[in-house]
């Protein structure tokens, strides 16, 4: 359904030094700095798949989504979405997709939600019966009946987001790009929205590409994730393998008594930078151990303290993501 080959996007951003001299100089000649927002990204997504697209701020997620939705021309590369080249913006393509961006919506703030939805139904040329069915379904699933007669600007953030989702899905698109759909929503609203997205994917067989900074969104909705950083794709695979492949460390948990605790205090500094103590008390110690040194560290711990109850695990997904975002990937 989505094929991306060698996709790159470079923006030329105007730059100047601080001060009057540079300000006056920029009147004559402006300096532009190339920013490589997306670099040689490749992936394919099958029909009906729901994929999480994650990465730190400024990694290139939204830029990629905008190229897939036809809003941006790439600097290089090929994209095919549902058989179309997005930036040609053919009518049939625009009827097939939707893009939901947190703060950019299809609702007209000065009109009622019902009027905005009606205009969209007409723009997408929906037959009256299909419009009624789609509206009924979305109103029920998203619980927005009482919002329909209200002006969009009078709705709360969460209410408006649900109405924006309804507006984006009214024409029942087969390809859905969701950019931070739960941003700023309370926990209860996030859960309901996730449940709706999952239901839409299941019942409509839609292909969904979702970006979110809330790992809970990705964990609960997507089996597969794409991890992007500095414009390059670092990982494409099942979420459960992300920690295994990407985490530069393992987490070692030691359950012990008072005596071992004292011995550990003497032993652990000998490992130097290979370990980090995440948590330590008289009966439990949790260590972060460099993946490359994990075997050696564990072997020594077992040898020195055979009575200790030791378990090795991949760190929680949030910790892996945090580590990758902050320090990159240790290859």
């Amino acid at each position, binding site marked *: 359904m989505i094929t991306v080959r060698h996709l790159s996007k470079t923006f030329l951003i105007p730059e100047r030094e601080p001060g009057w001299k540079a300000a006056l100089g920029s009147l004559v000649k402006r300096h532009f700095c190339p920013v490589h927002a997306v670099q040689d990204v490749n992936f394919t997504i099958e029909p009906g798949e729901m994929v999480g697209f994650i990465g730190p701020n400024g990694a290139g997620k939204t830029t990629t989504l905008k190229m897939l939705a036809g*809003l941006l021309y790439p600097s290089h590369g090929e994209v095919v979405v549902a058989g179309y080249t997005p930036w040609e913006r053919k009518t049939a393509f*625009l009827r097939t997709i939707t893009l939901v961006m947190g*703060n*950019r919506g*299809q609702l*007209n703030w000065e*009109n009622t939600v019902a009027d905005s939805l*009606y*205009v969209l139904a007409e723009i997408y040329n929906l037959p009256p019966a299909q419009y009624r069915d789609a509206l009924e379904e979305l109103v029920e699933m998203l619980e927005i009946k009482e919002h329909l007669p209200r002006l969009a600007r009078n709705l709360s953030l969460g209410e408006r987001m649900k109405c924006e989702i309804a507006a984006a899905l009214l024409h029942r698109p087969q390809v859905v790009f969701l950019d931070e759909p739960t941003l700023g929503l309370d926990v209860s609203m996030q859960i309901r929205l996730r449940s709706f997205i999952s239901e839409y994917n299941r019942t409509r067989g839609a292909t969904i590409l979702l970006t979110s900074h809330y790992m809970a969104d990705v964990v609960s909705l997507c089996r597969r994730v794409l991890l992007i950083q500095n414009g390059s794709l670092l990982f494409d695979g099942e979420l459960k393998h992300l920690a295994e492949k990407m985490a530069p460390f393992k987490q070692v948990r030691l359950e012990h008594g008072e005596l071992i605790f004292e011995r550990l205090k003497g032993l652990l500094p000998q490992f130097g930078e290979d370990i980090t103590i995440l948590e330590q008390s008289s009966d439990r110690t949790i260590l972060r151990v460099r993946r490359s040194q994990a075997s050696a560290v564990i072997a020594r711990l077992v040898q020195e303290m055979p009575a200790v109850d030791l378990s090795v695990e991949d760190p929680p997904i949030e910790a892996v993501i945090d580590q990758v975002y902050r320090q990159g990937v240790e290859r």
Partner: protein
Amino acid sequence: MNLRGARALISRTWMRNLSGWGFEWMLAFGHLIETLVYMFVWVTIARQKSLPGIERDELVVYYLIMMVLHEITYPGAHYSIGAAIRSGGFSTWLLRPLSPIFSVIASDLADKAISVSFTLLTTFILGLVLQPAIHFTFANLLLFLLAAALAYFLRFLQAYMLALLAFWTERADAFLKLSDTLLFIFAGQVAPFALLPHGLQVIAAILPYRYMLGFPVEVLQGQLSPAQLGQGFLMLLAWIGLSLLAHQVIWKRGLRRYSAVGG
């Protein structure tokens, strides 16, 4: 063309703007006051000395019709396009299977439905007070309607084209302002074409502005010979053709530059 979508967009934008009639009337007042001032200036001059080829009543009618035509053709909605491009709001229009120009048309028509009603009412009252002698022929009226429709199209298209320069520059509004200023000088607002100095007449005959405003009014008043009429309509069509071509180029290249900020 997606007429169904365009119709719905226009009708609902109209509905939305009804609540803002006070704002639209104030804008319309601002627009007509400029023309009104020049009408009184020229009427006062006409009272003191005779003007070549134009009577006091003709001046009054000329400016009253110009007030209405100026309001009908004024591209007010175009000022929001630059902001939409800069802020990334333009993305919303691009995602729909309907050309973004319809969003501008919808806003323009919705604004006009309210503001023109104010101008018509004011013009009617001014007509009653000033009581100028009015002479139109049916043929001239038909030609006026054609010229006015083409003038609306040309002014809309040129303003849209200038607004799209926001793809390249952050302050494309300045081009719209410049265009308004040139229109004020060359379109027959500051003085009817016949009263402009010769040098300005030559420039005004070449530039598009006269054909956006002064020319249709001259057509209605029967001030033009058949040759001048033909030449005027040809200029109108030529400027429309040029603007359409320029619009195509700007649109295609502009979309390539669009950076869809935000999101």
